[in-house]
């Protein structure tokens, strides 16, 4: 927003992963890009873990700590103490204006620094990660407890979608006034490449003109790969030449491979980013059959590459797709999914048009610049 970011702020970001050191999943990308965006007009310090020297990249000062512990919860507490120690070293001359925490890992640090201007961003909840179910084991309770406590003491909370905001409000009693929705962003160029689709397909033994459906994600219940396999069975009745590539791995892989024995589905397992870019730009359709999806970054990545998307009508996917304008929304069940895939493959020209409009939406709503502006707006609403 114009006018709101005139003064340069000093911002501390706490996140347990980052692009240039320890990196686990999508959170690293989101937190790092946000930090880099903010660093264009503010002083940004990024507190994270890593076994390397502190460094400054694109204006962001990274401070690493080296945690340890016997289990996830202990490990994260240890990390939090390390982060706070680093934080105090840089809080001396000029005090930090805002402290921005990501997910539950650093809630212990949030606890210690709770008198400051704190913001907690939810990228997902333990309940959602567990497939919209409560767990009865101690880690589940511990982590949910930390999420509740973080939401309680943080001065301001953001969630990456309205669905997640509702979830957080219901699970953890975070009041409506305290919680903003700030979506994730994307750097479209990282996913858009000019590539000969036919050649990439051939590398997988697929005919250059055969329509290729891509699934990417962990092979776990939450992401719904089993729904896709069952849907493919129906799609093949209409499109004998359709091919599917399933990228990613997870505990369902064995089961899925068994189910897909007689289907044109290729499980390629974990792929490096470069292979993802190649496949994403070579495929004809991206399918996101998730049962629960707080945001759904794959959607923005597919749109960046101007690909048509068939996605479940859940969570962030449901909010961000305009049905038949920039994608097709279906119910998370095989019949509905098969119908959606067929409707796209019957009319490839339309699929391309939807993908192009998706890209336009990305350029309009999901670039990091405007999203950084939204975050600073949230900062300014912090009531200490």
């Amino acid at each position, binding site marked *: 927003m114009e006018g709101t970011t005139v003064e340069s702020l000093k911002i501390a970001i706490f996140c347990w992963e980052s692009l240039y050191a320890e990196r686990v999943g999508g959170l690293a990308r989101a937190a790092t890009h946000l930090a880099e965006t903010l660093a264009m007009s503010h002083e940004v310090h990024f507190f994270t873990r890593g076994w390397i020297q502190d*460094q400054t990249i694109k204006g962001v000062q990274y401070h690493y700590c080296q945690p340890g512990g016997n289990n996830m919860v202990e490990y994260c507490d240890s990390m939090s103490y390390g982060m706070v120690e680093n934080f105090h070293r840089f809080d001396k001359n000029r005090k930090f204006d805002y402290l921005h925490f990501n997910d539950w890992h650093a809630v212990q640090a949030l606890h210690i620094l709770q008198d400051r201007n704190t913001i907690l961003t939810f990228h997902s909840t333990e309940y959602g990660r567990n497939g919209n179910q409560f767990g009865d084991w101690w880690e589940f309770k511990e982590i949910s407890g930390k999420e509740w406590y973080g939401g309680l003491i943080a001065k301001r909370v953001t969630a990456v979608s309205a669905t997640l905001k509702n979830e957080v409000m219901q699970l953890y009693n975070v009041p409506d006034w305290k919680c903003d929705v700030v979506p994730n962003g994307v750097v479209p160029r*990282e996913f858009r490449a000019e590539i000969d689709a036919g050649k990439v397909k051939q590398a997988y033994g697929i005919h250059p003109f055969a329509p290729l459906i891509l699934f990417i994600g962990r092979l776990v219940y939450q992401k719904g790969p089993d729904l896709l396999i069952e849907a493919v069975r129906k799609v093949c009745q209409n499109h004998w030449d359709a091919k599917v590539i399933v990228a990613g791995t997870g505990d369902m892989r064995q089961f899925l491979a068994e189910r897909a024995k007689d289907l044109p589905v290729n499980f390629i397992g974990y792929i*490096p980013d*470069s292979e*993802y870019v*190649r496949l994403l730009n070579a495929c004809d359709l991206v399918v996101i059959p998730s049962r629960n999806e707080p945001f759904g970054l794959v959607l923005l990545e597919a749109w960046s590459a101007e690909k048509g998307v068939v996605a479940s009508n859940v969570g962030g996917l449901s909010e961000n797709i305009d049905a038949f304008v920039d994608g097709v929304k279906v119910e998370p069940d095989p019949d509905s999914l098969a119908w959606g895939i067929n409707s796209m493959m019957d009319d490839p020209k339309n699929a391309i048009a939807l993908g192009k409009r998706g890209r336009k939406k990305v350029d309009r709503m999901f670039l990091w610049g405007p999203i950084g502006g939204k975050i600073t707006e949230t900062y300014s609403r912090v009531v200490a």
Partner: protein
Amino acid sequence: MPALSIGFEVHQPYRLNRHFAPDPKIKRKDLLNLYFDEINRELLLRVAEKCYIPATTQVLEMMDAGFSCAFSFSGTLIEQVEKWSPDSLALFEQVAAHRNAEILAQTYYHSIASCFHDKTEFTEQVRMHANLMRDLFHADPAVFENTEFTFNNEIATHIKDMGFAGIFTEGVDRILGWRSPDYLYTCRDIPVLLRNTQLSDDIAFRFTNRSWDMYPLTADTYAKWVAQSSGDVVNVFLDYESFGEHLWSDTGIFDFLRHLPEELSAQGVSTILPSKVLADYSPVGTIDVTETISWADIEKDTSAWMGNDRQRAAFFALQTAHAYSKDKQVWRYLQTSDHFYYMASKFGSCGEVHSYFCYLEGEDAFKTYMRILADYEERNIRTMKNRKAAKALRTLSPENAFHFASPAGYIGYTAYNLDQFCELLHIVPRDSIQHHLERGDFTFWIRDVLGDTHLAESIKECTERQELTNLVCEWRERLWSHLK
């Protein structure tokens, strides 16, 4: 009753030589034959025969009878008709001398220079065009029409500062909102004439469309539509080549044109020249154009020239070529918007429009363009002070560019010069960079292609993306400071 202001854009580019291959033996004076296609002459003769001569003959007759209209000739067109079709030029001279015609200003090279970061080149080309119009036609254009109506606040300010009385642009819905394009507006204190998209496209695109419910369009229907407008003046602006070339004469387009004046007067509509519009009407409001708009396609923005990555790569390379442009002429020919139009990868209805105009596919067009730009820069290095820096920063042909890959193959990112290489180091997936680092590809490329042994040596030991990026980007800035 509104008046009708009708204008024609008359332009031909110098199309690039599709079969270009670098040939060091060719002398500088023969370069134009090497870079530009022989087909230009052929195409010009065809357009002259089908459009310029018959259409202009007819328009002259109409103007004798009181019909008035405006013409905007690009400098590259004038050069071509001077060389190859003196008959057309003679007719254009008659037009320019006619009391019912007005000559408009544009950039000499029909260029995209107005989108450059630095506007001095744009200003220079507008001046060159004004000089040409004065020398050739004894005309002193007062109203400006930018390439494909490209327009924004900044361009408006520039044109006002150059002393023009008004400027044309597209009546884009999202800029106007509820307002009608059929009035005079101002933008940054310069009067703006807005093209009526609907009535212009009725002729240019829908005239031959048999599935259009108004097909076939006749002059009396069209005159009625114009008369129905509640505004002050309807601006219709067309590619002149619509008459006879895009729409062949057997479509009836010439009959349509011939009967237009009488049908217009039957409806009580008079035709008016742009400068007269500025004198007779006062602006009814202001428009604020922060994004860049144009008349192209349905998007009405610059996506026809800068819509995909290869177009953007070419556009940035073209701008950096300024440092190499001792011989400005070729550099300026390369700025003509058509080259970028040919690289488009659009689809659907506007894709069909594109495919008609495009004589080679987008990818080929892009490769040809980069090969020629690379050759042009290479030839100019000899005359530059710091040849080493110039060589390291020059734009490369697709054959010499750096294509990022993974063990599985090309991943779709290509750096055509060191600037783009720096930018891509931030974008390209980490595993691809790791792959090249392990093989030493970066070092080889920088040493053997860019010829920068210092940089090649210093990155030899790099193992991490960040370290590499810092070294390369810092060194690149140093090199540029040597050139400037």
